[in-house]
């Protein structure tokens, strides 16, 4: 009977470090997780165990994976700490808020918050419409407030005696212009109303269309607001 001596074996089996040590992926590598998580059947488990006794590469990976899994098993907090921290902060806030207010107060706070949102999103933007551009002539454009014209803004039964608009503030000078096909009359005043002189009224003919516009100037003469040009018609008698 042929006998193998240890020193003979050593040169072929033990010293050969390349055995199973190839860089390419070993087909048994996919079994590592299954083995460590006890998911392999008996046949696969035994085959894999026999394999890692022969494959240094797989055994190295097995040891490495085992250490990773043990670390995860013993320190799960490192995987969930961020979420846990976020959750605990949120729950602490919730608890503290709940402790500070009664349910009635919380409900009231909710309603107030909703109303505040309505004010912020529905009303404020209307008051903060960006200053419109006014095209005064083909070359001249200004950005400023608008002036609301009060009368006349609809068709009139007779020639209007006065023109009225909404006041902007103190020390504002208004320039009123009345147009037919061209400028009919222009005048300035510090009031928000102007009486139409008789000679101008005389020029205005029933059945004709007219338009008027008001511009506002600051004391230093800067244009600060312009109304839209409103058209009106004097009804025929």
């Amino acid at each position, binding site marked *: 009977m042929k006998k193998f001596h240890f020193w003979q074996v050593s040169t072929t089996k*033990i010293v050969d470090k390349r055995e199973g040590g190839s860089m390419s992926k070993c087909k048994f590598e996919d079994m590592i997780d299954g083995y460590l998580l006890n998911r392999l059947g008996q046949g696969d488990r035994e085959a894999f165990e026999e394999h890692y006794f022969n494959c240094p590469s797989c055994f190295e990976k097995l040891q490495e994976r085992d*250490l990773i899994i*043990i670390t995860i098993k013993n320190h799960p907090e490192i995987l969930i700490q961020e979420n846990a921290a976020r959750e605990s902060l949120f729950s602490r806030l919730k608890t503290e808020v709940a402790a500070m207010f009664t349910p009635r107060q919380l409900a009231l706070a909710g309603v107030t918050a909703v109303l505040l949102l309505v004010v912020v999103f529905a009303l404020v933007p209307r008051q903060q419409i960006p200053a419109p551009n006014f095209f005064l002539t083909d070359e001249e454009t200004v950005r400023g407030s608008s002036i609301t014209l009060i009368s006349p803004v609809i068709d009139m039964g007779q020639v209007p005696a006065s023109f009225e608009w909404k006041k902007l503030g103190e020390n504002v000078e208004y320039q009123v212009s009345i147009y037919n096909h061209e400028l009919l009359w222009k005048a300035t005043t510090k009031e928000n109303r102007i009486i139409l002189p008789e000679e101008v009224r005389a020029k205005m003919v029933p059945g004709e269309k007219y338009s008027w516009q008001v511009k506002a100037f600051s004391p230093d003469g800067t244009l600060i607001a312009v109304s839209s040009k409103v058209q009106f018609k004097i009804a025929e008698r």
Partner: protein
Amino acid sequence: MNAKKKEEDVQELITRYRPIITFRVRKALGAQNPEAEDLVSEIISQVLEKIKSGEFRGESSLGTFIYTITSRRIVDYIREKTRVMKYAPVPQAYPDPQETLETVEASQKIKEAIRRLKPKYRQVLYLYYYQELTREEVAQRLGISSRKVSELVNYALKLIRKEIKL
């Protein structure tokens, strides 16, 4: 063949196979089993004895030969204990590794590497390794494909391995 060469070969065999035998024994009996180390030493002695006596004929690889001896000894040990204790020792699922300086250091590096992972990787590792869900279950939980789960797990492991080897 001189005695010195023989001694070197024995040492090489022990260096190479002792960790493998230890891993197998601890996996079977539990890392905390106080008799595990003795059993490993006993297995190594048996292996050396059988090789010296010519029982190993090269019909299989040396690894398979040692694996067979290890497995038989583990089975015998469990039988002996079952007779004495009525119940076989139940291995602990995931005890702390035998705390060598090397494993403590590696474990620390693993923790640091995991902390640096993006949340999506940490989440998958938590479900797959800590909660021990299957890849399909993880996929279902996260609303992604099993293939994607495998990709995330493999990439996370790759990043961790990279840190360990630094």
